[in-house]
């Protein structure tokens, strides 16, 4: 019998062989997509959150006009929208994994998942509309 190649020194991020093994004959179902989304959004959020945090510190003592002018200009508008969307997607994967650990009734699990998804969609929609309003009013 052919011996499977060793994956001892591989990790899922470094070597596609791990993904191929768990995806097809392995136990992974849709969860692998979530795992990937969590890591990809994490990578994107490193620069995006640092950018947003630095901007907020810079805006800390400014008035509404300054903040609105900043938020409506093209680069901040784009980066804040990306930050909010990546953050909410990342948060949804994380909150879902918390729910899966602590909510053991199917009804409550579905209800809680619907709630966090609806919350994320509302927060994301409101944020995007707010930024777009300022951007389009330029």
């Amino acid at each position, binding site marked *: 019998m052919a011996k499977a190649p060793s994956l001892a020194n591989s990790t899922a991020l470094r070597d596609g062989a791990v993904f191929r093994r768990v995806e097809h004959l392995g136990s992974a179902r849709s969860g692998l997509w979530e795992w990937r989304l969590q890591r990809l959004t994490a990578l994107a959020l490193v620069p995006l959150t640092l950018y947003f945090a630095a901007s907020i*510190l810079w805006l800390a*003592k400014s008035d*509404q006009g300054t903040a609105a002018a900043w938020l409506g200009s093209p680069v901040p508008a784009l980066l804040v929208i990306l930050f909010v969307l990546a953050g909410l997607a990342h948060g949804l994967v994380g909150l879902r994994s918390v729910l899966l650990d602590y909510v053991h009734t199917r009804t409550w699990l579905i209800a809680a998942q619907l709630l966090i998804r609806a919350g994320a969609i509302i927060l994301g929609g409101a944020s995007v509309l707010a930024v777009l309003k300022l951007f389009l009013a330029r």
Partner: protein
Amino acid sequence: MMERPISPFMFPTWYRFQITSALSILHRLAGIALAVGSILLAWWLVAVASGGQLFAATHAFIASPIGMLLLFGWSIAFFYHLCNGVRHLAWDAGYGFEIRDAYRSGYAVLAATAVLTVLAWLYVLLA
């Protein structure tokens, strides 16, 4: 009769305190706090876009003692989750799994969190 230990409730009753597991739980708690914080983020963006009374009320809330306390807590949660998240990404890429390395990176994350939080608030208070 003793209850059977069930997975996410192993700590601290069944497992001895370790910096690694404590940081892991803190990572999750910080993540939950940041998810809650996204409400204020969206609220602030809407307030900036609306201006007028909504912005004034939002600004007053943020500048109030409760608002500042929340912001302070969120800033710790943010810097901690960011630094420890980078530590997690390094593990995902296969680095730092030796126990000694995991301890060292854990302490480094705590130090970086403290330094970044203090720097951010010094900037707010002094600039």
